[in-house]
């Protein structure tokens, strides 16, 4: 495995699509950051990340931000893509608590077909537990 880090080009700045916004709003609602971040998110620009078409996006807050500014995950969610393959979403903020990225991982690394209706998005709560998430009570 090479240690070389190729130049990772982000896509052009664009607005959030309606389906992305709906998903992110649902994830924010499940996080302690909703009051601060929900009013800002609609107006934020994003750039697509080079992840092979899985749909990860980086939020743009007026300047480029290095991965070193990553702070923490504030919400995790999951759904099944149209082909039945599970997709994991991780909404992250930077060290200042501003929206940083939405990491999308389709578990077979294939391109995302599309986001579900937010009703079909499941918020994953791990409560700090390692392994698989605890079963819902």
């Amino acid at each position, binding site marked *: 495995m090479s240690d070389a880090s190729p130049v990772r080009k982000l896509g052009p700045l664009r607005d959030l699509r309606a389906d992305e916004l709906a998903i992110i709003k649902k994830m924010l609602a499940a996080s302690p950051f909703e009051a601060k971040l929900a009013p800002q998110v609609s107006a934020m620009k994003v750039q697509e990340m080079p992840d*092979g078409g899985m749909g990860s996006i980086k939020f743009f807050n007026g300047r480029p931000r290095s991965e070193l500014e990553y702070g923490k995950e504030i919400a995790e969610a999951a759904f099944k893509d149209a082909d039945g393959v599970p997709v994991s979403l991780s909404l992250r903020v930077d060290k200042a608590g501003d929206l940083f990225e939405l990491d999308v991982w389709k578990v077979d690394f294939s391109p995302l077909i599309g986001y579900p209706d937010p009703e079909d998005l499941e918020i994953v709560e791990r409560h700090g537990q390692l392994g698989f998430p605890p079963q819902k009570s």
Partner: protein
Amino acid sequence: MRGRGQVIVFGQDTNQISHAFRHTDVLGLDRAEVADAITRNLQPYLPLPVPPPRDFIFMGRVTVRGLELSYQAYPLSEELVNVGRITGP
């Protein structure tokens, strides 16, 4: 990398591997060292069940050169575990 019958994969192409390791790259960590630590950490849990509980992903934690990293893995089959997300402290 293989562990207890399941091969552990960190992405299918250069972009996806870079995406998975992007947080550890900027920390100056060697990809092979990170991958080895994750593979060793996963060993006691292998084989991961297929399908996993509720089809959710597995989360683990390793320490590499004093830095605590989180990783997420999904058993795609009885032969293959994909690791698609690694984040730093």
